[in-house]
């Protein structure tokens, strides 16, 4: 298995603060890789940098052989790297179904000229997209809420909607930002199963930032540990759990 994502010496500063201070690691294709570390370790900033909403101050990020560190966020998403947010950013004023439909790729109807000049192609794509959207909503158990405003969903339900949207995008790499945050314990098991099933069935790679160490231990093949903007160590969950440096790093901060 080859690395699908390579982060090389990435630095990101905000004024005098070095939020990410030379991070280097690789993510293997088809893996579930955990990214953990105490608060302030730079994980979210690194995520944002990979996803393209921030540009690194220096360093390289290579995805599937292509450099993406200077690429804007929407192009990174189109290239196959999709990011979720800690608080699922669903479009609250639109329906659940619309939220998933928005994730449809290459829709001719989404271009102004396409909508006007190719109505047939647009209608066909829309029909196919709707079918697939309903399928995915059924997969995550939100089918009954398809017409409801996404704003009426609970936190956990929004995460499921997020997952459906992610699947609609057919990504190669998914950056999951604290998927378990704000999710009721009962729902966590379901969410974990979805993630593992998706990896198994569709071969999608996951890079997951998560504070719920149980989740990380259960789900991750490899774990990258960050502290103070740098990578402390990389290893299997078992290796990382017993690593003294990691324990020190965590004990040193409120958790």
């Amino acid at each position, binding site marked *: 298995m080859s690395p699908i994502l390579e982060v090389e010496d990435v630095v990101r500063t905000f004024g005098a603060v070095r939020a990410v201070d030379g991070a280097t690691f690789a993510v293997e294709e088809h893996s579930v890789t955990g990214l953990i570390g105490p608060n302030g370790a730079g994980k979210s900033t690194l995520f944002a940098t990979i*996803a393209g*909403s921030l540009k690194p101050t220096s360093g390289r990020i290579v995805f599937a052989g292509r450099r993406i560190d200077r690429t*804007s*966020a*929407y192009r990174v*998403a*189109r290239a196959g790297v*999709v*990011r979720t*947010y800690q608080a699922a*950013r*669903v*479009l*609250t*004023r*639109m329906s659940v179904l*619309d939220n998933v*439909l*928005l*994730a*449809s*790729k290459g*829709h001719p*109807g*989404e*271009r*102004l000229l*396409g*909508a006007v000049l190719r109505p047939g192609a*647009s209608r066909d794509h*829309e029909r196919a997209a709707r079918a697939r959207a309903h399928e995915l909503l059924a997969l995550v158990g939100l089918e009954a809420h398809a017409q409801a*405003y996404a*704003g009426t969903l609970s936190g956990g339900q929004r995460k499921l909607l997020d997952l459906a*949207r992610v699947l609609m*995008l057919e990504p190669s790499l998914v950056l999951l930002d604290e998927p378990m945050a704000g999710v009721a314990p009962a729902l966590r098991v379901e969410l974990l199963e979805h993630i593992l099933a998706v990896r198994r069935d569709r071969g999608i790679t996951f890079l997951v930032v998560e504070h719920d160490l149980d989740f990380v231990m259960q789900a991750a093949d490899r774990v990258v540990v960050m502290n103070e903007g740098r990578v402390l160590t990389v290893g299997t969950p078992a290796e990382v759990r017993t690593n003294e440096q990691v324990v020190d790093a965590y004990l040193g901060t409120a958790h």
Partner: protein
Amino acid sequence: MSILASGGFWAFVGVVAGIYTILSLGLQVQFGFAGLLNFGQVGFMALGAYTMAILVVKEGWSMWLAAPLGVAAAAVGGLLLGLPTLRLRADYFAIVTIAFSEIIRYVATNETSLTGGTQGTIALGPTGTASQYNGQWAAFQTHLQHSLGFSSADATMLVIVWTVGVVLLTLVWVALRTPWGRVLRAVRDDEDAAASLGKNVFAYKLQALALGAALAGVAGLFYAWEFSFFSPDDFEPLLTFFAWMILLLGGLGRVWAVPVGAVVFGFIFAGTRFLNFAPFTWVASDERAYIRLIIIGLIILVLVVLRPQGLLGNRREMVLE
């Protein structure tokens, strides 16, 4: 009170409401559906009107060629404004758009050889002549009036403006129900989320700005045809604020709320002419113009505080916050 019974007056109010409907529809596309804080809408109106008038008077073009070009000029204006500015923060963008419309007014005021300057379109032709751009349109309007059997020019114009208005409203309504419209609304609601779904946010905003500008250009054309004369000061920021007020009145984010807001606005504006009772009779009639605008300003304030979703808006879908 005899003016109250005058159909001609109310037809005129209806025409103005129709022009404002088209102007505000453009703003609804830009803000109600794309979330763009455009406070320079009147500038695009000026671009449409002036382009048409200049082409007709100075270049001798046919009105029917000059008019679409006026709309195109307004759309291009939108593109030129948006390209450097749409990546700015919302508040900076708002200020820059006001500057844009004021700069247009400035140029129109000072480039006398191009626009006739402060004297307006009468001075478009060679010095000494009083030029008129409206000849072809007036002929068309009269022809239509006779065909339809109407007794007044005002009624004819009313029909024309509102026919075009309804067509445009329908076109916009249809466009917003396409997948393109869906992305636009997503950009309005959360542009970062839209970007993370692979949407080119900048391109959509630019399209919305240009479309809204084109609609303002159409409004400018009708303004020019209705009044058959205009000068730079006709396109002052006050008109943009009226358009905003219409959006607030009718409701943000709803196409068919725009004509409702425009008609209500028309009634308020016209209705304040009839303040022939105390305490308004205490002030001279020309000063009542100030009072009308004060009333309008107060209405904006009250709406913003008490009913930001407007008459028809859906509180849950309220775009204001």
